[in-house]
């Protein structure tokens, strides 16, 4: 089984040590050792209750500097990336608006066509005929101009 423990064993040679110990134990009729029993952690308790913290203003400043530097770095990164992000969003927006503009243009063209068809003289003439409109007689026309009386340069 390729577990992490076996991988560590394999790398550190613990398996081989285990084999050697097993051979000796069998010979000496000793109990079988546990794997890695020669490795142990020793914890030494330390009593810091009587210690007094020494003033270290340099460390405090260094800490603040580190924090500020990190913040500045983050802000700089954000500022550096902001135009790209803005471009990206603006690009989507431009694309959407262009699509809308194209749709509006197409609708406008269709409306222009309909309007031109509806206002064509041929259609108006058909409507007039259907409504039985008639052209006025010349005598019914009232010209909006000065009366010809008094004109002296006319040859008629």
């Amino acid at each position, binding site marked *: 089984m390729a577990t992490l423990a076996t991988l560590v064993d*394999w*790398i*550190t*040679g613990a398996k*081989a*040590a285990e084999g*050697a110990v097993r051979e000796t134990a069998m010979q000496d009729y000793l109990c079988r050792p546990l794997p890695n029993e*020669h490795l142990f952690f020793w914890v030494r308790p330390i009593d810091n209750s009587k210690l007094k913290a020494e003033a270290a203003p340099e460390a405090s400043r260094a800490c603040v500097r580190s924090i500020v530097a990190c913040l500045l770095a983050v802000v700089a990164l954000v500022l550096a990336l902001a135009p790209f992000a803005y*471009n*990206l969003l603006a*690009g*989507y927006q*431009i*694309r959407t608006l262009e699509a809308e503009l194209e749709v509006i*243009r*197409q609708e406008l*063209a*269709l409306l*222009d*066509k309909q*309007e*031109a*068809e509806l*206002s*064509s*003289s*041929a259609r108006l*003439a058909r409507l007039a005929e259907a409504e039985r409109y008639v052209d006025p007689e*010349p*005598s019914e*026309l009232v*010209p*909006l*101009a*000065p009366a*010809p*009386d*008094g*004109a*002296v*340069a*006319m*040859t*008629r």
Partner: protein
Amino acid sequence: MGPHLEPHRDRRVAILTGAFLLWALILAGRLVYLQIWRHHELAATAREQHNGTETIPAPRGKILDRTGEILALSVPVESAFVDPRNVDDIDRAADLLGSVLELDAQRLQERLAWGVENNKAFVWVKRKLTEEEASRLKALGQDWIRFRRESRRVYPKGPTAAHVVGTVDFEENGNGGLELSLDEELRGKPGLVTFLRDSRKRGVEFHVLVEPRPGADIRLSIDERIQYVANRELEQAARAFNCPTGSLVVVNPHNGEILAMSSYPPFDPNEPVRRPEDLASRTNQAISVPFEPGSVFKVVTLASALETTDLKPDSPIDCGPGVLVLHGRPIRDIHAYGVLPMQKVLAKSSNIGTIRAALRVGEPQLYEYIRRFGFGERTGIPLPGESPGVVHPLKRWHRTSIGSIAMGHELSATTLQLALAVSAIANGGVLPKPRLILGRQAPDGAYREEPVAAGRRILKPETAVLMRRMMESVVLEGTGRQARLAGFTSGGKTGSAQIPDPVTRRYTHRYHASFVGFAPVQNPVIVVAVTLNWAPRYGGVVAAPVFQRVAREALRILGAVPDIPLEEIEPDAPPTRQEELADVPDAGKQAVSPQHELARVAEPVLAEAPDGPDYFVGPRVPDFRGKPLRAVLAESARSGIPVQLEGSGLARRQDPEPGAVLAAGQRVRIVFAP
């Protein structure tokens, strides 16, 4: 850890380190292979995947009439295509599409099968669908049917001005009329944009490589309302007299603006050409088909006589016993007119009188004047296929050519040439350049007006005025009485040129019936030229009524002020049979006494753009203020501008103000005070 373990561990660590090194080497090699060896190829692939390039369409410009009515525009339409690889059952798909779009299912199936065999992802089903077809297709709800937006040229006014506007082919390239001659301007130039796209192929960053240049909108001098009337009247007359072809031109004589140009037979530019006969109807008869003008041309002959000889409108011309033998060739009038004043020669369309006047002019000068009037050369109208007509050079004239040419034979002219020639008479002697394009509307909205081309003076103003009065007598008492207008004076000339049969080489009893006239006589607003080919009757009967109806409507639309009292209007009297025959060369005529006193010169303003939305340019009003009655009358008589006088003493006020353009039929009101 015992010392016996060290060699094992070192060896394994070395193996592991070696493995890691090998792995790192493989990675590095792979990187070198990808980043250096295949750099260009992979970079190109990445660019292709991330960067897109699109054409920015440049919509074709509109064509508008002078009032802004749309005569041609492009509208979006949808085209259907399929990816044959996504179609499960090609036979069924072909049947379905064929039934919905009324296509040949067998051919469609073959195309789809070809697409599958050749691994094609795009096969057109039908392009530029109608709205109904598109909605039917969408209602099927099949995801393998895809649509693409395209553009289609439409002509909302149908046949109105179709010969002027022209047509485009399936790809919207102009193939006739202004669509062809202004194709480059109308089409514009598409642009190119490159963009970065995300994983969903949405564009996020754009860079315009080539700026698009949309087609310009073209504003024409054509008035759609007048054009409609012209089409209607020409068609009615052509049908009534069974004429296969005809043409009509309405011109503003002062600046050459073409207000209407109609050609018969008509065609609808929205309909595709289905039969070879359809192509014939697309010929613009007004500019492309010259014909022998016949008696209409007598206007040119007599104008040149007034200019170059001592003949005056009241000069007697001996028309003899009705027959003139010119170098052995007999030329006849319908009647023995005897001695006629020159004015009556035109009114009665006497062949002999006209020839006698031409003989006094002489061949060189007659030829010069024919050319001065613009015959034998293209007018320069921006339409394709214009014919210059035929005017033989002087050295090719025979001994009797002067007789034929004086009557409008042995040469040919287009209806537009005739209209412009009479425009020169109407405007005071300047041959105008035809003006069909008023301006261009750039895509940014800026309107650029087309400058008015200066005409060239071909007649003295006095001659033009005399000719106008002589042509008025044609309408009042000559062959063109059916051209009389209610409320307006009018002048013109009829023409009826017999058409020779090329097989028998004899004249048939069919005519190029024409009428060219203007109204009002003083300061004319319009010139109308009408021609009906292969007419069974004469210009005075066939063409003059068309002039009358078109001119009446055009004057109303243009807002011209009537220049004669409405009470003087008389019902149209059709010309007698004898009067009709007078138009036909080598036929007889009879005389009518002269009536009109000739007026003096009205000097029009030419080669100048009209102010504002005015349709026409008239003479400028002189400054009458401060002058006594006698001086005012003298100035009025000299300039030909009618005045209306009130009071006595010195002229104190006038309306319109000095320098204003006088509209047709308008008078200058002058108030006198001590």
